[in-house]
C-alpha cells in the first residue's frame, strides 16, 4: 500500500490552519504523556500547589493583616496566579529540552508545520494549568475558602487565569529558545517570576510598599489579574479613590495586559523558534 498517496489525499482535504491545529494537538498530546510520566512534573502540578495553599494559609495566615476579609480568601487567588505564572518557566524548560534533543530534527524532517511544536507545548501547559487550578481550588475549598461571586463570575475568573497562564507561557517560550541549555532555561525561566509575583498584591497589600515599588506593583500585570480574580471570586479589595486605573479597573487592565503580552511574545517566540530550527 502506498502511504504517500493516502497522505496526500488526506492532507489536501484540509487547509493550513486545520493542519497547524492538528499538529499542535499531536504535540500537546505527546507533551502531556511526557508530563504524566515525569514525577517532577507531578510534584509541580499536584503536590506543590497543595503545599503552597496550606503553607501560606497556616503559616502566614495569622501574621498578615489585610483589613476586613480573611487572609485566606485574600491569599488564595494570589497563589492561583503565582502557580499559573510558573507555566512560563515550564514552557521555557520544555522547549529548550526539545531544541537540545534530536527530536526536533525528526519533527523538521516531517511535512508537519513545525510551529505546531511551539503551539503544542503551550497548549499542554494550558492543560496542566487546568489541572493545577482544579487541585488548588479543591484544597482551598477544603480549608474554608469560598466562591462568593457567583457561578458565571467564577467561570470568568478561571478563564482569565488560564488566559494569563497561556500568555506567560509565550514569555517562557521566548526565554527557553534564547538560552543554551535546559539548566539555564530553568534558572532563567524562574528568575523573573519571583520578583514579578512578589512585587505585587498577590501576598501582601501594596499600600505598605515604598513609593517606587508601590507604583511598580500597582501596574504589575500580576496585581491586575490577582485583583480581578479576587473581585470575581467575591472578595473585592478596598480601592482608594485616588488609586490608579489598574486598581480601579482590574479586569479591563488584565485583559489589556494579556493581549499585549501575547501580541509581543508570541511573534518573538515564533521568530526565535524559526531561527533555532534553521541552524
Amino acid at each position, binding site marked *: 500500500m*502506498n*502511504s*504517500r498517496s*493516502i*497522505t496526500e489525499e*488526506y*492532507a489536501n482535504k484540509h487547509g493550513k490552519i486545520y*493542519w497547524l491545529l*492538528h*499538529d499542535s494537538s*499531536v*504535540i500537546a*498530546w*505527546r507533551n502531556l*504523556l*511526557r508530563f504524566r*510520566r*515525569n514525577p517532577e512534573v507531578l510534584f509541580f502540578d499536584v503536590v506543590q500547589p497543595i503545599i503552597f495553599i496550606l503553607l501560606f494559609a497556616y503559616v502566614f495566615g495569622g501574621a498578615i493583616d489585610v483589613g476586613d476579609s480573611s487572609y485566606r480568601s485574600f491569599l488564595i487567588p494570589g497563589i492561583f496566579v503565582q502557580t499559573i505564572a510558573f507555566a512560563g518557566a515550564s514552557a521555557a524548560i520544555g522547549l529548550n529540552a526539545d531544541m537540545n*534533543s*534530536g*527530536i*526536533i*530534527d*525528526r*519533527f*523538521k*524532517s*516531517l*511535512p*508537519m508545520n513545525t510551529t*505546531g511544536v511551539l503551539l503544542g507545548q503551550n497548549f499542554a501547559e494550558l492543560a496542566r494549568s487546568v489541572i493545577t487550578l482544579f487541585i488548588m481550588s479543591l484544597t482551598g475549598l477544603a480549608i474554608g475558602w469560598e466562591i462568593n461571586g457567583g457561578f458565571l463570575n467564577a467561570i470568568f475568573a478561571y478563564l482569565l487565569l488560564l488566559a494569563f497562564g497561556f500568555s506567560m507561557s509565550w514569555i517562557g517560550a521566548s526565554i527557553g529558545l534564547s538560552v543554551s541549555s535546559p539548566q539555564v532555561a530553568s534558572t532563567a525561566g524562574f528568575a523573573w517570576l519571583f520578583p514579578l509575583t512578589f512585587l505585587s498584591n498577590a501576598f501582601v497589600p501594596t499600600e505598605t510598599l515604598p513609593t517606587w515599588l508601590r507604583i511598580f506593583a500597582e501596574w504589575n500585570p500580576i496585581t491586575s489579574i490577582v485583583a480581578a480574580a479576587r473581585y470575581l471570586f467575591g472578595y473585592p479589595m478596598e480601592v482608594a479613590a485616588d488609586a490608579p486605573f489598574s486598581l480601579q479597573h482590574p479586569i479591563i487592565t488584565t485583559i489589556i495586559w494579556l493581549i499585549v503580552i501575547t501580541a509581543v511574545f508570541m511573534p518573538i517566540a515564533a521568530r526565535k523558534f524559526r531561527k533555532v530550527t*534553521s*541552524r
Partner: protein
Amino acid sequence: MPIAIEATNLVKKYGDVTALDGLSLKVEQGSVFGLLGPNGAGKTTAVRVLTTLLVPDSGTAIVSDVDVINDPEHAREIIGLSGQNASVDENLTGIENLIMLGRLFRLPKKEAITRAHDLLERFNLTDASKRIVKTYSGGMRRRLDLAASLIANPTILFLDEPTTGLDPRSRLMMWDVIQGLVSEGTTVLLTTQYLEEADQLADKIAVIDKGKVIAQGTADELKTQVGGERIDVVVDRSKAELAAQALQSMASGKVVIEGEHVQAPVSGGGVKVVEAVRALDIAKIEIKEIQLRRPTLDDVFLSLTGHHAEEVKNEDENVLVKKGRR
C-alpha cells in the same frame, strides 16, 4: 542507473569554520553510498544539508529530481533520516513515538496505528512496544529511530552513523536491517567512521576530510588507488638487504625494508607470490613468512587524510591502524 542523490559544490561555513568546502557527490538509485571520514570531517553537516535540515551557503542538492534547497517540503516526502543521536522521544513508549510521528506525517489515525505496529514488528520491537524508550538498549533505540524514519516510506534513506556506540551484536543486527532495506530497493546514504562498515555495506565510498571529498570509488578501487597489492616477506634481519635486491626485479615499485619485513609492491596477485618465493629461493634466502597484502580501508583512510602519513614509514602498521580508528 538513474541518480538518486546529487550534491554539487556544497559550501557551509560557521563563522571561521568551514564545515563543507565544495562537497560534491552522486549516488545511484538503489545503491548504498558510504560517506567515510573522521570526526569533524563534515559528514553530519552534509547529511543535514541533503535532508533539508540545514541550508548551505552555496551549492545545489537534488534528491530524485527534487531540489532540496528550494523545495524542502517536497523533498521531505521522499527522504528518511536516522540521525546520529537517536531522534525519538525518550519519555514516550516505542508505540507512542511511532504513532505520534505517523500522525505528524499526516497519516489518518487508524493508518498511523497500523503502520506503527507493522514497523515495530519488522524491527523486532513488538515486545518492547509499551516500554518507555529511556529503558531501551542502544541497539533498540537505533532500531526504533530507523523505524521512525521509515514511517514516510522513503525511497531514499540517510543514515548518520547508524552503528556508532553499538555493541558488535547490535551492529550486526543493524547491518542486517540496512541490507534488508536495500534489497527492497531503497537508496541508502550512510556516514560512518568505521571502515569495515563502509567496506561491508557500501557499493561506493567517498572519503571526506575537511568538508571535501578526497577520494571516491568502490572499496576495491580505493584500495588500488592507495597503492594496490604488495608482497610482505619476513626474513632474517641480516638478509633483508639481499632479499630486497632479489625482489626488486619483479616489483612494480621500490621495495621497502622495515626491520625483518621486506615489502615489494606488485600487481598481478597470487602468481607474484610464487615468483617471489622462486626469486628468494634462487638467492638462497630463508623465508620465515610470506603473504600477499591488499591495503585495507584503514590504509586508504590514513594515506588519504594524511593524519599519520609521515609515521607510516617508521612505525608498525598495526599500531597505525589502531591510531587511525580512534
